[in-house]
């Protein structure tokens, strides 16, 4: 009578992802935040700051990658908090006693996180188009954009899961993600790095967000990408791999302690 499709780890992860998405549609404040934020950020950067920043192109075109990465960062807070919540109640015990693996639950969170962030990112593109965004990317470029964004969102979501496991409470998890949302500001996402104070330039040039931004920008505007995509993918791959490894250790520690 059992249906093999759902008793496999992949089926279980998908069931959990479905549940995460169903639940996040009902957390009204988080939902409004994740839908409103992309719109507000785009309008704010373009209409309020855009006039004052000289980037050599239309600012809306320049700033799209930065806003996308910022939204993905904010989205990760939701993920970290919901992982942390799942670890505090009795749910994890019940699932484990049913032989649902922790990996399936965490993979479900990552999947749901990717899906949520995808919606935010689409919204950014939509608002950008309304504000006069004119990308010159061809179909292959768009495919590459989607690929890089997917790698980035998976990396941030995995990191969020690790943070959710590390945090002692959902509130703490929320606090930790502040760091992730700060990174895009100190990158080439909003202003060119050479306009920053020199002490921050070194950091801005060598942190993961900058090559990702440059890759997206190069692909969208057809201005060439150099070695940026490889750096970007290397960063995303490394963050994902380390997050997964750390999560698995943290998860074992959490369940052993409780």
């Amino acid at each position, binding site marked *: 009578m059992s249906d093999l499709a*759902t008793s496999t780890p992949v089926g279980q992860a998908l069931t959990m992802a479905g549940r995460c998405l169903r639940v996040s549609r009902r957390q009204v404040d988080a939902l409004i935040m994740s839908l409103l934020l992309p719109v507000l950020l785009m309008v704010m950067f373009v209409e309020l700051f855009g006039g004052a920043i000289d980037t050599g192109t239309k600012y809306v075109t320049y700033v799209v990658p930065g806003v996308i990465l910022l939204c993905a960062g904010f989205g990760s807070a939701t993920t970290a908090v919901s992982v942390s919540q799942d670890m505090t109640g009795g*749910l994890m015990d019940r699932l484990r006693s*049913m032989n649902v693996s922790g990996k399936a639950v965490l993979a479900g969170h990552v999947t749901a996180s990717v899906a949520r962030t995808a919606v935010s990112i689409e919204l950014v593109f939509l608002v950008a188009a309304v504000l006069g965004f004119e990308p010159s990317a061809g179909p292959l470029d768009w495919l590459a954009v989607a690929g890089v964004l997917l790698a980035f969102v998976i990396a941030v979501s995995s990191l969020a899961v690790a943070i959710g496991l590390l945090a002692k409470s959902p509130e703490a998890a929320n606090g930790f993600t502040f760091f992730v949302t700060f990174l895009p500001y100190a990158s080439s996402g909003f202003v060119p790095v050479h306009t920053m104070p020199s002490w921050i330039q070194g950091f801005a040039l060598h942190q993961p967000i900058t090559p990702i931004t440059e890759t997206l920008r190069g692909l969208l505007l057809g201005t060439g990408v150099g070695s940026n995509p490889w750096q970007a993918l290397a960063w995303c791959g490394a963050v994902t791999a380390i997050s997964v490894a750390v999560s698995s250790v943290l998860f074992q520690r959490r369940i052993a302690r409780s």
Partner: protein
Amino acid sequence: MTSDLAIDASGLVKSYGAVRVLAGIDLRVRRGTVFGLLGANGAGKTTTVRILSTLARADSGRARVAGFDVVSDQAQVRRRISLTGQDAAVDELQTGDENLRMMGRLSGLSRSQARVRAAALLERFGLVDAGPRRVATYSGGMRRRLDLAACVVAQPAVIFLDEPTTGLDPRSRHAMWELIAELVESGVTVFLTTQYLEEADRLADSVAVIDGGRVVAEGSPAELKQRVTSERLDLTLADAWAFDQVARSLGERALRADASRLTLGVATDGSASQIRGLLDEIDPERRAVSSFAVHAATLEDVFLDLTDATATSRERESARV
């Protein structure tokens, strides 16, 4: 030989740091029966449940659940058990129906099977009207019922219920008791922990009381109650020699013994003739017993007595060290 045992544990030991929570626990539960594990706060009930349900590992000792070893055949055990922990394991933001369907899917039912099963369980647990509502709107009793329903979605052979009625009002508690009793009729083995003797009395075929990391009493509720509902004769002995003599002659009948205070407790029905007979029997020369008191015991008392007696003996042991 062990085939009629749903749970067979021996010598379970578990320490957290320097705290020895379980100091060698043996438990045997026959298939299709209800077993009640009683103990005060911190006695180690949850720890025992977690070991038996494969969530924690004992430092030493062995346990077989549903015919499989909880360590070496963990996956086989998990396929046959279900746990309702002390903390609710339902999703506040999902409806009752969605919670049950999710559990069905996770345990391997198809989408349509899960839907049918969820509907049947909502019906059986009196949650039909509440089914489409979010759990956040449920009362404590409804939440517990849903938790129990979620526990049986996968039709487990053995279910663990950790304090299933703590915090419920008497009416909800009775409703839970009825539901649990119905579960047993369908052939499930139930292992429940509780702080309420009355609950164990209502539900359990056999009971064990744990305290200080050990089983301090076990038997059917009737046997346990017998130790309690009858009154207790507390004897104070004249000296250590008399204490030893009387303790030996009472043997198993001594409900409690405290060598430092020279006191012994014996069950009695409280009648003058019985007490007179008992005193004549254990103290024919009328020298050993210096005083006595008849103590009317309640259900609460067994529990308090048992746990109190071991607490004092533990104190004595540690004082001697």
